[in-house]
């Protein structure tokens, strides 16, 4: 067993209204960042977990996302990084 650090991004599904993202985009525009087209505000989780290999650490975090960390009705998730912890 090794310890892996798995980072996961969870973001509101595209197409659904994300009022937080819209508020941030409006603020960026008012600061002069006129190139901003869309902002979505989500969560970034970093999970340390013991697993025999990186693939299984990723698999188990995907399972966590499906069962708890992301809401399948409204959010998408992606594994951002897996590294030795």
């Amino acid at each position, binding site marked *: 067993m090794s310890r892996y650090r798995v980072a996961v991004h969870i973001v*509101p599904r595209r197409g*659904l*209204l994300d*009022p*937080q993202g819209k*508020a941030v985009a409006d603020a960026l525009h008012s600061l002069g960042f006129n190139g901003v087209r869309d902002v979505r505000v989500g969560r970034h989780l970093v999970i340390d977990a013991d697993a025999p290999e990186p693939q299984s650490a990723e698999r188990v975090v995907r399972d966590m996302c499906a069962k*708890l*960390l992301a*809401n399948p*009705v*409204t959010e998408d998730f992606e594994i951002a990084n897996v590294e030795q912890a």
Partner: protein
Amino acid sequence: MKFGVITFPGSNSDEDAFLAITDVLGQEGVKLWHKDHDLRGVDVVILPGGFSYGDYLRAGAIARFSPIMREVVAHADRGGPVVGICNGFQIACEAGLLPGALLRNASLQFVSELCRVRVETTETRFSNQYAPGQILRLPIAHGDGRYTADDATLDRLEQNGQVVFRYVNAKGETDPSADPNGSMRGIAGIVNERGNVLGLMPHPERAAEAIVGSADGVALFESLLAQVGV
């Protein structure tokens, strides 16, 4: 009739629900704790409002794993009635008892006001004591009440008569400005397909006596009683 009110860490409407059931309706109330493993023979389960587990991760996401929720899901699977109010609605969605999800209000602001909802169907065990199309004044107090589901789910809810309450304006019409949180199709409350689980964002238990501004919530509980002829 025996009503069980579950208290989660962070519930704040449990006492209001208990008082509405006992003082106003004269029914038996049972206080249940989220760590209990037994519903103690209650006929109806109430998941009350509040901020269970500080709304960590997502509103209702952690409460869903409280020990008693296993019993609540089993009760619902047996056809037993469950009423999820506000945070209870969020918990019921997270637990898969109801379709969809409740997201941050479109305004990003917490709303606390007396809203208007229209009774969309009286053919449920939670709304049979209302008149069709009746307009109710019920309080709302939430930051995450924007009902969201995909179009297929919304269409199915409408076709099956599962939309029980909808936000309306003073004329009783749906209107985006009367939708306090940006809920899709103005949905304020729904039942599951089997009709035994109700979730709603407004607080009927806080509208149980005229002295607090409205008694329009009482008939919701009376509907449950009428069902069994109590």
